[in-house]
Structure formats: C-alpha cells, structure tokens
C-alpha cells in the first residue's frame, strides 16, 4: 500500500525549529531546517540523527526545501549541511538565497562572538552551505530527479517566502511554510492554485485568532505613534523579525510623507540595512502598489528613516526607533528601553512581563526599573489567521491537512474545525511522531484512439463527471498499461478469436402462437432483465472464464487487482440491448481470470 509519511523533527505542536521530514512514493524530502530561539543547548537544532544514525544524510534525503529566510526556518542549515554532512540540493527562492546568509552570519556572530560558544558553524561553513543552494522561481516546476518535482508558490509573510508543492507521480504534498492571506503594505497575499494534494502541511500560529481588519491595526498604530510624537515623546518599537520591520518602516515612511512630519525615525541594526538592499532589488516579490510605483520611486528607499547610532538615544525631542530583538530580552532594544522607560511621555511596545502588566522590573545588577512609559501591544504578525488558514485549505482542496508551527492546544481547536467544516482529515503530530497517510495513486493507462472514439460515438450526451464503462482489453507489458480493443489484443498476441456460446433450454407452456409468445417473453425480459438477468449472465460468463462483470470505473478493478497480462473488463453499457440474441460473448481465448 503506497503511503505518505510525515515526521516533524521540529515545529510539531511547537513554534520554532521548523523541520519536517516527508516520505512520498519512496522519496525523502526535508522541509525547512530551522533553529529554536528559546534554547542554547542541543535542543536548538533538530535531531538529525533521527534520519540516520550511521551513513551520510545525502543517501537518505533527496532534497531539502527552505520556505523563507527566518532563522526558525533556516537557522540550522549550515550545521546540517556542513557539520552533520549533507551534499544534496537545497532549494529556496532567490530572495531567500540572498538574505539567508546575512541572517545566518548575524546569528553566528551573536552565538560565537558574544556568547563565546565553541563548536559552532563558521563563516566558511555558511558560504559552503550556500553553494549547495539551488534557487527557484515562483511557479517554476523544478525536477529534482526523474520522478520528484517541486514548485514554489507565493506565500506573503516575508520577502521571498514560498509555499512548496512536492510531487511524485500523482501523489503530492503542499508545504506552506509561514504564509499570510491578507496583503500588507509591502507584500501580497499568499496564493496557490487548486492543486488537490494528498496532504497539506500548514502552519497554525494563529489557530484561534481571527484578526481585525488590517486597516484598523494600521490606523491604530499610526495614530498612537503620531500622538506620542506630537506630545514630544520618544517611541521605541522593538521588532521581532526582518520583514516586519520593513513593513512598519513603509507604513511610517508613507505616513510621515503624507502628513509632512519631521520627527526622525531611526533604524537600529546594521543587518537590516544590508537586507534592505535586497528588498530594493526583489521588487517583483512585493505587492501590487510597490511593483507599480518603483519606477518613480522605490518604496524601500526611505527618506525619513535613518540608521541609528547609540548616541541618538539621549537626544532631546521626539523620535521613533526600531530596535531588535522584539522581546526586549537583550540587545539594543533593551538598552534603549532602560533609558526611556522612566518617562511617561514615551511609548514602547515591549516585553512579556511588561505586557502582562508588571510595572517594576528587576534588571541584572539588582536594580529595579520603574516603567512609567506607555506600553502598547500591537500585532503586525504576517501569519494567516484562523479564517485565512481555512481559506487556504479550501483553496487547495487537499485530502488531508497536517498542522505544524503552532501551540498544541490551539491546534486542537483548529483541527476540530477543519474536520467539522471541511470534512478533511486533520493531523497534528508532535516532534518525532510519524503520521502515515495511505494514498491511492492512479496508474495511467494508455488507450488507443480508435477504441476511445468508437466508445465515444455510442454515448449521446456529455456527462463528463460520470464514469463510463467501455469494452476493451487491458494489456500489461513491462510496466506500461494499454487498453485496446479485443480484436487488436488478439492480433498482438497472435491468438484466434474463440467464441463461447451459452445456451439453456426453457420449456414454455403457452397456448398462444409462437410469434406472440416470443414477443411477450421479449417484453417481459425487457422489463426485468436490465439488472438481474444480465448480472446473472455476467456472473455465469465469469465462471465460464471469459467475461468479468464490473460496474466500477475502469481503473477500479485495475488498481485493486493487477492481473497478469490480459483481462477483459468490458460490460455492455446498455444491458437491455439484445436479450434475445442469446449470451454470445466475444472474449479473447486463453484469457486468465482472477476471481474478484
């Protein structure tokens, strides 16, 4: 029984460290290779020893696909390819290929230079790793090998984020990576065609959220920032990830421009500056507005936004600063936060503790920081919400859905919804847990044109969606299947036609004339025969070894019981056509029959 097996090594009922193994029709594909932000030990990378304890990974994996450049989707890549050892192809989109090494290098610097970790991947490893990357375009079908093909679709989320369809023969899996169904200021909405895969692996970060319209969010944000700046306060905006920062920058930049505001906006880190460069280049990956106007002005060439210098934080007057990291646990955002927290004019959107209402914070060195500044929480996350996920599932029409990249409890809820409303089976494996999905691959059978036309000519009305039965002989030679007319089959096999005749004698005691009786019998049979009589005959024919009655679709029996060489799968499409002519059947002599 063919099947698809999916094992998350990371991101199973969890956010972070996305890494999912998929086996489909004998091919093994690894989807994403991320790290976990929350850990600093071995747990930060997926456990690649699960794939193979001995031997090289290259022998087990046919390819690796990276959906986008966030570290929780690509952070473990150099470790995986250079330190564990993998030489196969790594697929990602062009923007991902360009920006990914910047982020990896930054990550490496923090880990090695700041935290002093040994045994970490080096810059050279990142470079070597990137050499193994094969870049793909949107909607480009890439043939990994003879059978395995992948295709990328636009996913929104960040620049270059893609959903991937992995296809072997007629079996396919779609992996969404992270995606966003509502367009924002610089990216479009995710889009995929109705490819009806066997399985859809989707993220479920916002499994229980239905977000307000983005317009409210934007308006809220702009209004709050504007008010704070007008008061003369400073605004600290800690941003999580590359991508969201750009979104907010564009939002503020256009607002500043429209409203002619003068307060400076600063952008904290050097890394984003480099990434910004690529944002200017990959215009085709942005939304309609930016794509259409970049000739006049590239939206990523900011007029009001400048690079931040540490000294600026003490400048008087209003300002807006974007700083990383988002949760204020370290780095620049924390430093700025400390400076500004004491003034109630200032505003920031920060930290877990502060968000949960705490107003006094204990910092390192035992000092207590009193937070007087206003704190606001605003979600600009570019993930699909519950409705978006449902919308995508509806658009793709998969046979099954598998949830990853989300919290278990929220997934549970969404799973229930999906099963209830879309009537699609849904899975949510934990890390290391394997989901097995039986598939029923269809086997293509060639049919001779002559036969097809002859059979077409018999039908009158087109009802394309209904299965039709047709007479023919299936020939299996080597590994290909052909459906030909029985005459041709006989010819090819060099056999002579063999006629079997079944007769039975029925005594009728009828006082009427012969002619009349025959007519009555005919009309009687015509009324009754269609089902019982002909099925009976069919069965007797089968017993006789020449005929097999089948009311299923042609591929039904073929799939269930691959017979050895020739098999007549025909039935009269119109059982009532000639009942009095007697059960004369044409059948190839020497046909093997299998019961069933």
């Amino acid at each position: 029984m063919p099947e698809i097996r999916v094992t998350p090594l990371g991101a199973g009922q969890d956010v972070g460290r996305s890494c999912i193994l998929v086996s489909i029709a004998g091919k093994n594909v690894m989807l994403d290779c991320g790290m976990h932000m929350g850990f600093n030990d071995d747990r930060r990378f997926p456990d690649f020893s699960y794939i193979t304890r001995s031997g090289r990974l290259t022998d087990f994996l046919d390819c690796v696909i990276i959906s986008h450049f966030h570290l929780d989707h690509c952070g473990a890549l150099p470790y995986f390819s250079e330190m564990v050892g993998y030489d196969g192809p790594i697929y990602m989109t062009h923007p991902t290929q360009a920006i990914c090494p910047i982020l990896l290098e930054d990550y490496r610097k923090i880990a090695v230079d700041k935290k002093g970790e040994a045994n970490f991947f080096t810059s050279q490893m990142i470079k070597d790793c990137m050499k193994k990357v094969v870049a793909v375009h949107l909607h480009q079908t890439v043939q990994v090998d003879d059978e395995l093909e992948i295709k990328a679709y636009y996913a929104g989320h960040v620049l270059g984020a893609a959903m991937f369809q992995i296809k072997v023969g007629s079996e396919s899996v779609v992996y969404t990576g992270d995606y966003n169904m509502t367009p924002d200021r610089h990216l479009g909405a995710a889009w995929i065609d109705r490819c009806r895969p066997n399985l859809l692996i989707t993220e479920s970060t916002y499994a229980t959220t239905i977000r307000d319209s983005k317009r409210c969010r934007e308006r809220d944000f702009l209004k709050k920032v504007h008010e704070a700046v007008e008061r003369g306060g400073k605004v600290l905006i800690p941003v999580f990830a590359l991508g969201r920062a750009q979104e907010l920058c564009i939002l503020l930049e256009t607002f500043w421009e429209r409203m002619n505001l003068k307060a400076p906006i600063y952008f904290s880190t050097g890394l984003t500056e480099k990434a910004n460069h690529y944002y200017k280049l990959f215009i085709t990956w942005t939304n309609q507005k930016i794509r259409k106007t970049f000739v006049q002005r590239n939206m990523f060439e900011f007029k009001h936004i400048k690079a931040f210098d540490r000294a600026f934080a003490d400048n008087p007057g209003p300002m807006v600063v974007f700083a990383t990291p988002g949760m204020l646990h370290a780095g620049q955002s924390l430093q700025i936060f400390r400076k500004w927290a004491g003034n109630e004019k200032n505003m920031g959107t920060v930290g877990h503790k502060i968000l949960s209402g705490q107003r006094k914070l204990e910092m390192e060195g035992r000092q207590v920081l009193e937070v007087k500044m206003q704190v606001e929480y605003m979600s600009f996350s570019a993930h699909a919400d519950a409705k978006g996920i449902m919308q995508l599932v509806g658009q793709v029409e998969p046979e099954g859905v598998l949830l990853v990249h989300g919290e278990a409890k929220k997934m549970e809820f969404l799973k229930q919804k999906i099963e209830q409303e879309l009537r699609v089976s849904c899975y949510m494996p934990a890390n290391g847990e394997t989901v097995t999905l039986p598939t029923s691959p269809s086997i293509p059978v060639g049919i001779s044109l002559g036969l097809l036309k002859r059979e077409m000519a018999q039908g009158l009305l087109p009802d394309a969606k209904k299965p039709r039965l047709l007479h023919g002989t299936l020939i299996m030679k080597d590994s290909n299947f052909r459906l030909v007319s029985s005459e041709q089959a006989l010819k090819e096999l060099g056999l002579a036609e063999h006629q079997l005749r079944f007769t039975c004698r029925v005594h009728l005691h009828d006082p009427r004339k012969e002619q009349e009786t025959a007519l009555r019998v005919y009309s009687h049979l015509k009324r009754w025969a269609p089902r019982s009589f002909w099925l009976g005959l069919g069965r007797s024919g089968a017993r006789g070894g020449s005929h097999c009655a089948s009311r299923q679709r042609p591929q039904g029996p073929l799939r269930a019981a691959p017979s050895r060489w020739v098999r007549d799968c025909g039935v009269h499409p119109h059982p009532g056509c000639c009942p009095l002519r007697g059960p004369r059947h044409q059948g190839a002599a020497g046909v093997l029959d299998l019961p069933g």
Partner: protein
Amino acid sequence: MAAHLKKRVYEEFTKVVQQQQEEIATKKLRLTKPSKSAALHIDLCKATSPADALQYLLQFARKPVEAESVEGVVRILLEHYYKENDPSVRLKIASLLGLLSKTAGFSPDCIMDDAINILQNEKSHQVLAQLLDTLLAIGTKLPENQAIQMRLVDVACKHLTDTSHGVRNKCLQLLGNLGSLEKSVTKDGEGLAVRDVQKIIGDYFSDQDPRVRTAAIKAMLQLHERGLKLHQTIYNQACKLLSDDYEQVRSAAVQLIWVVSQLYPESIVPIPSSNEEIRLVDDAFGKICHMVSDGSWVVRVQAAKLLGSMEQVSSHFLEQTLDKKLMSDLRRKRTAHERAKELYSSGEFSTGRKWGDDAPKEEIDTGAVNLIESGACGAFVHGLEDEMYEVRIAAVEALCMLAQSSPSFAEKCLDFLVDMFNDEIEEVRLQSIHTMRKISNNITLREDQLDTVLAVLEDSSRDIREALHELLCCTNVSTKEGIHLALVELLKNLTKYPTDRDSIWKCLKFLGSRHPTLVLPLVPELLSTHPFFDTAEPDMDDPAYIAVLVLIFNAAKTCPTMPALFSDHTFRHYAYLRDSLSHLVPALRLPGRKLVSSAVSPSIMPHEDPSHQFLQQSLERVYSLQHLDPQGTQELLELTIRDLQRLGELQSELAGVADFSATYLRCQLLLIKALQEKLWNVAAPLYLKQSDLASAAAKQIMEETYKMEFMYSGVENKQVVIIHHMRLQAKALQLIVTARTTRGVDPLFGMCEKFLQEVDFFQRCFIADLPHLQDSFVDKLLDLMPRLMTSKPVEVVKILQTMLRQSTFLHLPLPEQIHKASATIIEPAGESDNPLRFTSGLVVALDVDATLEHVQDPQSTVKVQVLYPDGQAQMIHPKPADFRNPGPGRHRLITQVYLSHTAWTEPCQVEVRLLLAYNSSSRIPKSPWIEGGEVSPQVETSIEGTIPFSKSVKVYIMPKPARR
C-alpha cells in the same frame, strides 16, 4: 493690357478646374462598381495554390462591398468553397460569408440554405465553428423570421455533440442569441420531442471543457439579455459552477447567479444540511460574498461589483458583510444572532489586539462556530483589504451603492470607509472619499471619525484635499466640537496649501449653513470677542479670517440670534464681503440695516436678478443706438464694455455672458474705430503708416471672433452666425486696407477671389439664418453678389468699403448658458529661483498641473505650449489619460512636459502656457449637399489654430553642456 491678360488666364483656369472635377467624379463611380464579383472570380480561378487563394481572399476582404453586389460575390465564394480542399481557405471563405451577410441593405436569407448545406458536409472543426459563426451573423440579421431562427437552433443542437470545443462554443452562442423559450416542436427519430433551449444549454454546464462551460453560461446570460425569463432551476446548477476549477467559469457563474437572484428574489430555497429555508436573494448574496475571497482576482472584482447591485437583500445579511468575526452560520440560526455575538466577545476567537487574549480557554459551543459556511461574513472586510486595488475599488463602489439604499448599513460601513482613507493607492482613497460624499445624507460623523477624515486634509495630493472639501460640504457633524475641529483643520490646511483657498471657503460656506445651531455657541470664540473689552480688529485680507467669517455668516442666515453677537467691525466686514464675495456670503437680515433690500431678496427670481437686468439693459442700450454720432457711439461702447467686465468680475454666474458680450462689443468698437480712420480720405501713398492701425484692428477682430466661437461653451448656432458675420466684416476690412496700401492690383485678384468664396461659403452654411440678418453687411453683400463676381477688384473694394460703412450693428442674442473656458496653471508655480538643471540634449520632465473650466472635450483641444527664450515654440499634446474630471464643467490636467534644449550659458526662463486648439470645420453645420463623395472646395476655410487661454508661467531652466 496686362490686367486683361490676367483676367483671361484667370477665367480659363476656373473652367478647367470645374471640368476636371466632374470627370473624375463620374469616372470613379463607374469604375468601382461592377468589378467586385467578377474580379474576385478571376482571381480565385487564377489561384494555383491554396496560399494564393488565401492571399486573394485577404486582399478582397480589405475593401467594402456594396449591398447590390453582395449576392454575386457570395455565389462565387460558395462555388469556390465546394471546390476547395484546403481547410484554411474554406475557413476564410466562411468568415467572409459572415462578414458579407452583415452588409447593410443585404438580406442574407438566401445564403442560409447554402451555409447549412455546406455545414453538413464539412469535416474540419475550425471551419465548422466559423460556419456556425456565419449562421449566427445571418440569424442576428433576421431577428423577426421565426422559421429561420428555429432552423438555426436545430442546426446548433445537432452540432452540440461535436468533439471540438470550438464548435460546441459556437453552437451555444447560436442558441443563446437565437433560441427562444417558446417550445418548438421538432421531429426527432421516434416522434415529437419538445426542445427547450434552456434545458439544452443547461446540460452543457457540466461539459468537460471549461471553455464550453463558460460559453454555456454566457449563452444563458445572453438569453436573459434578450428578455427571456430564465428558469429558477438554473440557480442550483449555477451554484455548483461556483466551485469550478477555472476562473472564467466561476466569473460567468457569479454573473448568472446574480441574474437569477434579481429575477426570483423572493422565492425560497432550502439550506443544504439543515431543514431551514431562506430567500433566494439572500442565499445568492451569501454565495457571491463568498466569491469575494476567491483565488482569482478577476472573479473577486466581478463578485465585489455585483454585490453593490443586490439591493433586495435582507439587512442582517448585509450587516454581516462588515463583520469578519461573526462566523456563526446565521442562515441556520438566525435567531441566535446575539448569542453568537456574545460567544465571540467571550473570547473563543481572539482579535489579536490584546496581548495574551488568544490563550485557549474552554470551548463553549464549537458547533455554533462555523468558519467556512460563513457566507456573507466579512465579505467587505476582505474586499477592502484585498491586494489588488481593482478589487478594493470595486468593493468601495459596492459599499457605496448598498449604503445609498440602506441608511442603517451606511451608518455601519462608515468606519470601513474612513479606514480606506488611509489606503496606499491614491485612486482608492479618492474613490472612498467620493463614496462617502454620496452617502453623506444617510450618515452623521462621530468625532473620532471626523478626526480621521480631517487628518487626510494634510494629504499632499490636491485631488484628495479637494474631494475632502466637497465631502465636508455635505456631511453632518454631530457636535460643536466637531465643527470646531473641522474649522481648525481647514485653517491648518489653508496655511499649508494656500492654493486651496477657494475650495476651503466654499466648504465652510456649506458647513456653516448646515449646522447653524452648532456654530452659534462657537461664535464668540471664533470672532474672539470679549464681553467687556474691544479686541483688535482682524486683518480683512487674511484668508483665514475670511474663512471664519464665511462660516459664521452662512450659519447666521438661518440663525437670527447670531448677529447680536457680532461686534461692529464684523458688520463692516460683512458689508464688504457681501459685496466682494457675494457667492460665498448670503444676504443677512441684520438689525438696523436696510431691511428693504433684504425683504426683496427672497422673492427675486433668477432672471429678475438686478445684475442680470443691468446686463440686459446695458446691451439694449447699445443695440438701440443706430444713428448716434460716431464719437458718442465709441464712448458708449467703451463704457458698456467696462461695465460688462466689472459685472463679470462681480457676479461669477454672469461672467460668461458678460464677457462674451463685451468681446462682441469690443469687436464692434474696433470696427468702428477702424472705419473712422482718416486713411479712407487720404491718397494712397500717404497713409502707409496709419494703416497699421486699421489692419491691426482687422487682425484683432479675427482673433476675438475665434475666441468667441471656440472659447465659450454653450454657444448656439444663432451666435455662431453673428460671429462669422463679424469675421466676414473683418476680412472685408482687411481686403480694403490691403487694397489701399498695396500698389498694383496683382495680389488683389487672389484676395478678392478668396473673399468672394468665403461669402459664398457663408451663404451656404447659414442659409437658414439669413433672414435674421436683414439689413446687415452680408445681406447687402449678397444682394450685390452677381455684380461683385464680375467686377474688377478695385471696384469690389470700393463697393465693400461703402457697404461696410453703411452696415448696421447686429444684435447678438444671448444664449441660455454660456461659460468662458479658462485655465489656471497651478504647477509649475513659477516662483522658484533654482533653475532646473539638466544635461543639454537630454530631456527633463516638468510636472504640469492645471485646472480647466468649461472646456469641452479637453482631451483633443487642450495643448501645452513651451516657449523658449530663443523664440522656439513647442506644442505638446497631453495624453487623454492625463485629464481628470472632478466635476461637471471642470477638468484637471496633470501631465508631464518634456523639455530639451541645447546648452545655454545662463539659466533662463521658458514660458509654459495652455492653448485651446480649434478647428473651424467642427462648428459649422453641414448642409446636406456638402456630404457625399464630392470634395469640398472650401477646404482652406476650415481654419485650425490655437488660442492661449491661460496665463503663462515662467520656469527657470538651465541646460548644461554634457561633460565628457
């Protein structure tokens, strides 16, 4: 002798011309006609290969065929068709048959039999499809012939089973265009069968080819368009097609569902998977709403557009479209509306706006929550935040239409519209502002909404700001704080963009007159009056102060208690403003003022308006003077012109009329002045110098007449005659002056000839109006025409001179509505001292932004002229897309002008101005006999030219030599 010789040459020449013309015309007619079919026949016989034949056919297809020869051509084509083996040639012939049968005046029923005949023997699918197309053309040409239609429908039905999608497509098209619902009886194999076109087409909704499915739906829509009532049963079939894999099918299906929902809005349909029922229009609405989140943007646009026109939908369905979170399947649990709302506010779904509120809680009743069957839920929320601005615009438009029909919905959608003011695409912002204006009768803005609306006033786009001013003109504000806020923001806008002055004043005028009671408590604050102290008198020329006064005075109109709060200088200012800005400041009933005038004012009818009366009187006065001494006439004219100009400045609604009349009087004045010149009495050699005046006058009159003719909208034929008459007089003047000043008669021949031609042309064009021109110059001229034709130029001049002096002053009837075209260049402002630097030889783009008033068809008439300091002039034709139409009679030109020049040493100014291009032939009414093949000899009289109609703006530029 010489003169005599000349004359002979001249005469002969004219004769020759006439003969030639006649001959050519007749020959042409005879040559073209009979050749068609014969030539084609010969060509086709000559053709050796199919490619040749195809070439001949292609050539043939380029020329039109007359109705009489169509039949012959068709025969030849058919004949060739039977012989032809190559399908591509047959295809071309089939398409030609279709084209020919469309020829006006040809009845194609004779081809039909043949076409059907060849259809039966045709094997190629493409040719079959083309033949069916031909049949369609024939069928549509004969809409009243039932028998033929029936037959064609039969043919179409027969070919519906064809394997090629193209053939099936065409058959369906044929059925859609010709099929009728009346059941026709046809003979089938066994007996009588009833053929129902809808059923047949409906069967093809499930065809295997998406193109055929689309064609089937389109055919169905075609049936509907032709006025046949579709069955309700189609609805279910169409609903199934909504989940089709192909976008064109879905798009067409959405349309079909909409059509059915409009036909049977009140019928009841069951909801699948429950035993409840709802109205069909609600169900369809839900389904179309669902398509707003379709995968294809074409379908989304289609769906969003159609939503707007579904007015019968129930209000609770309508309101769902704005609530994304309300996901319960309301169709099944209608009464549970409130319960469902609570369910959501209780936090099963988080909105993502508060930290941690999406932490999972106990589920209350998950069965009631339905994410996908949500139908109408949030359709507009999705539509308004769609990626493609086409969808957003469609959604805004739909919102507008629905809100216009439902006040409660208007109230609800307000927040969403206000949010759209922040869209990233200007067009969408503009559209939503316009939408808001349209529904403003139904809504009252809350303060926070007003705040968001007013924030847009800072927008740098003038379009947006002006649209917003218009919106504010007709919005209802609920509180006095709102009014104050609006005023403050508008004043801020005024200081930031002083060019918006007029628009802002107008806006405040309406704001004041709509909310008198809200303005009342604000008055002391606004006028900064103090109960005890006198405050400083504000500057009367300050636009901001005027803005405040406009608001107050307009509010005071319906609020009699308000003037009591005014201080003395306010009254003075009122008097001043009432005079200078009478269109903005209404007449007030002020205590202790002249009550008499205000008592009269309400009863004033528009045509009894004193200023209008004044205009009429002054014109009457001028026209009545016939026999005044020249001096007096001149003075009166000058006086009247001055009056009229002043009147035009004061009363903007009369500006057009006043200006128009003033221009006409000026022409007359010029003419009189020119005729008063002494030169007429002096011997020729002496007045060379003085004649400058007369010829300049003639030239100026010509210019003025062109202005009169083309710069005013609303000019009728009556005026055109007078204008042309004036021009004719100017030409006569010119002729006389030339005759007097030039020595010798040689150039006079041509001029005379031309002048006489023009007189002739004038007569022909305005023959109907000639009776009105009694006693005028032209009237007399025409009387003497035979004599003029034969006399020598010198005599002609003499006659003209006397006639010109004797002719009377024609009365210019005033049209109902007349407006002068005007243009103001907003940008470039021409104040910059920084030259625009660019490399010589390359181009620099200059943004030009101008408003045009009362320009008809600006796309073709308005040009931009650039004058370089070296006298080089360049004319630029703006693209049609550069013109916007913000209101009736108003246009806005936003374009880019490309400048280029060779290098200069110093920065210099170029002038940019707008021109109005005209073409005199467009105005002249065509008399019937000019039409037809004959080439009009008066080609030269259709004069093209341009009139500058804006002030020129100077732009400082500096082309630098390219650095090597």
